[in-house]
C-alpha cells in the first residue's frame, strides 16, 4: 500500500498580539502513520493542531488536505474532510447526556410523516452503547450526564465521539493528562489499533514513554518553530528532551 500525503501545512504563522505562537512551521502527515508532537508548554503544539482542526485561523501559510488547498477551515468543515479532534478540554457539554455528546454537531435524525426531521434518540443511544462497548469501556447507561463522569470516562467519550465517524486523521491533544496508568495504556492500545484500521493519528503528549511506544515519527516544537522532525526509531528520549528544551549535552 503506497503511502499518501494526507495533510500538508506550509509556512504556518500565527501571532497573538506580539506573541508569535507559530513561526513558519511546516508539518505533514502521511497515511498509516502516527506522528507525535512534543514540546514544552507554549511551544505551539495545541495552536498548530487547532489550526488544522479549524478551531483557529492561521495568519499566513497554506494548508493542503488530500492535495487540495483549504483556505477557510472551520470545525464543521474539518470533520467533513475526515479530520477528527479530541481537545485537551474534551469539548464535552456537561449538562447533556453521553449519547448526545457523542453525536454533538451531527445528531442523527429521522423523518416523521416523511417530511419533518426530528432527532432519532433511540438510534443514537443504541449506537453509542455499541461503540463504547466496542472500545471496552463500561458504562451503565449512555443517558447519564457527562458532568457525572470521571476524567478517564470523559476522555473515553471524547475519543469514542471522534472515531465513530470513521475519520482518516485523528488528532489527540494530551489525551492522557490526568489519567491513571491503566487508562493510559488503554488509550495507547486504541491509537495503535486505529493505525491498523488505516487511521493516521497526530498525538500531542507530555508522556515521552507513550510517544515512544506508539509513534512512527516525532516532531519537536520549541517557541513556535520546528526543531526536529525524525523517525522515532532513530531517536532516544534523551535526544527528544534535549531538543524540547534546547539543552545541549556532551
Amino acid at each position, binding site marked *: 500500500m503506497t503511502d499518501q500525503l494526507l495533510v500538508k501545512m506550509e509556512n504556518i504563522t500565527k501571532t497573538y498580539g506580539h506573541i508569535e505562537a507559530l513561526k513558519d512551521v511546516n508539518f505533514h502527515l502521511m497515511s498509516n502513520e502516527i506522528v507525535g508532537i512534543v514540546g514544552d508548554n507554549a511551544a505551539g503544539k495545541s495552536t498548530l493542531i487547532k489550526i488544522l*482542526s479549524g478551531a483557529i485561523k492561521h495568519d499566513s501559510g497554506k494548508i493542503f488536505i488530500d492535495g487540495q488547498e483549504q483556505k477557510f477551515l472551520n*470545525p464543521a468543515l474539518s470533520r467533513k474532510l475526515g479530520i477528527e479532534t479530541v481537545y485537551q478540554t474534551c469539548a464535552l*457539554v456537561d449538562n447533556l447526556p453521553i449519547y448526545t455528546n457523542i453525536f*454533538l454537531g451531527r445528531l442523527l435524525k429521522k423523518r416523521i410523516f416523511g417530511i419533518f426531521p426530528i432527532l432519532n434518540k433511540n438510534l443514537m443511544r443504541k449506537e453509542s452503547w455499541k461503540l463504547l462497548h466496542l472500545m471496552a469501556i463500561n458504562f451503565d447507561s449512555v443517558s447519564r450526564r457527562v458532568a457525572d463522569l470521571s476524567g478517564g470516562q470523559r476522555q473515553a467519550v471524547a475519543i469514542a465521539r471522534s472515531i465513530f465517524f470513521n475519520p482518516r486523521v485523528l488528532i489527540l491533544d494530551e489525551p492522557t493528562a490526568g489519567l491513571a496508568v491503566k487508562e493510559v495504556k488503554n488509550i495507547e492500545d486504541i491509537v495503535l489499533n486505529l493505525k491498523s484500521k488505516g487511521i493516521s493519528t497526530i498525538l500531542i503528549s507530555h508522556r515521552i514513554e507513550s510517544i515512544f511506544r506508539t509513534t512512527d515519527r516525532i516532531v519537536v516544537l520549541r517557541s513556535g518553530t520546528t526543531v526536529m522532525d525524525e523517525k522515532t526509531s532513530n531517536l532516544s528520549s534523551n535526544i527528544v528532551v534535549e531538543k524540547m528544551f534546547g539543552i545541549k549535552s556532551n
Partner: protein
Amino acid sequence: MKIKDILLRLGFLLLLCVFIGFLNDNFTKTENLINILRQASLLFILGIGMTLVILSGGIDLSNGSVLVFSSCIGALVLKTNLPTILGILTIFSCGIACGLLNGIMITKIRIPPFIATFAMLFIGRGLAYIILQGRVLFGFKPEFLFFGTGAFLGIPMPIICCILIFLIFSVVLGFTAFGVNIYAVGSDADSARLVGINVSRTTIVIYILSGLLSSFAGLLYTARLDTASPMVGASFPLDAIAIVIIGGAALQGGEGNLAGTGIGALIITVMQNGMNLMAISSLWQQFVTGGIILTLIVMQKCSTYITKRTLHITGSSL
C-alpha cells in the same frame, strides 16, 4: 431538568390555588379561571421566547419594546384599507427585524446581550412613540379583534395560540438538532463551537424567535384591548425573566424547559389574581412577587444541595 423539579413547582402552584380558593370564593369561579389562563397565556408566550434566550446563555430585555413597536407599526397598517393579513405580517416582520438586529449586535459586533437588548429596549419604544406621534390607535377591524376576543370551541383565542406555540416549541427544543444546539451553546459555547455547531447562527435565530414571539404577544395584546399604545409593557422583560427562573431555568444557561416556564407564568398570574381579589394593594404585590422569587431560589439551592449530598452518599442521584 428532572421531572421532580417540575412536580415540585406544580405542587407549589396547586397549593397556592387551594390556599387562595379557600380564602376567596370568587377565585374558583369559571370566569375568573378563564381570565387567569388568558392572562397567563400572554405572559407565557413572552416567556417561551425568553426561555430560549436564557437557555442559550443570553438575555432579552427588549421584549416589551418589541411588543410595542410591532403592534404600533402593525396598527398603522391595520387602520388602512389594506387586508388584515398584511397588518398581521407587518407585526411579525417588525418582531423578526428587531430580533435580527439584536442577534447581529450580539454575534457580529460582540456587544453583550444585556446591553444590546437594553439598547433595543430604548430604540424600539422610542421609535414607536415617534412614529405614532404620541397617539394611541384603536378601533380595529373585527377579523383582527377575533385574535384577542374570539374563541374556538369555547376556548379563548389567546389560550389556543399559546398552547399551539408551546407544543411547537416543545418539539423544537426537545426533538430537533436546533434544540440540542441551544442547550449546548448555553452550557458551554466553546465546546459547542469546537464540535462544529455554528454558535453565531444559532444565537441569531434564537433572538429572532424571541422577537417574533414578542410581536405575536403584541398582536394578541392589541387585539384583546382594541388599543395599540407605545406606553405599555415596561415590566414585561423582568416579568418574563421571573417566570423563566421560577420555572427552574438557570440564569447562566444550559438548564431549563418550557413546561417549567409555563408553570411559572401560572404561579405569577394566580398570585396577582389572588391579591387583586383580596383587594391587596398593588403596593404590596411587588413585595410578594419579590418574596416568591427569593423563596424559589432558596428552594432551588436546597434541591441542588440535597442532590449533591445524595450523590455523595449513595453514588447516584435521585
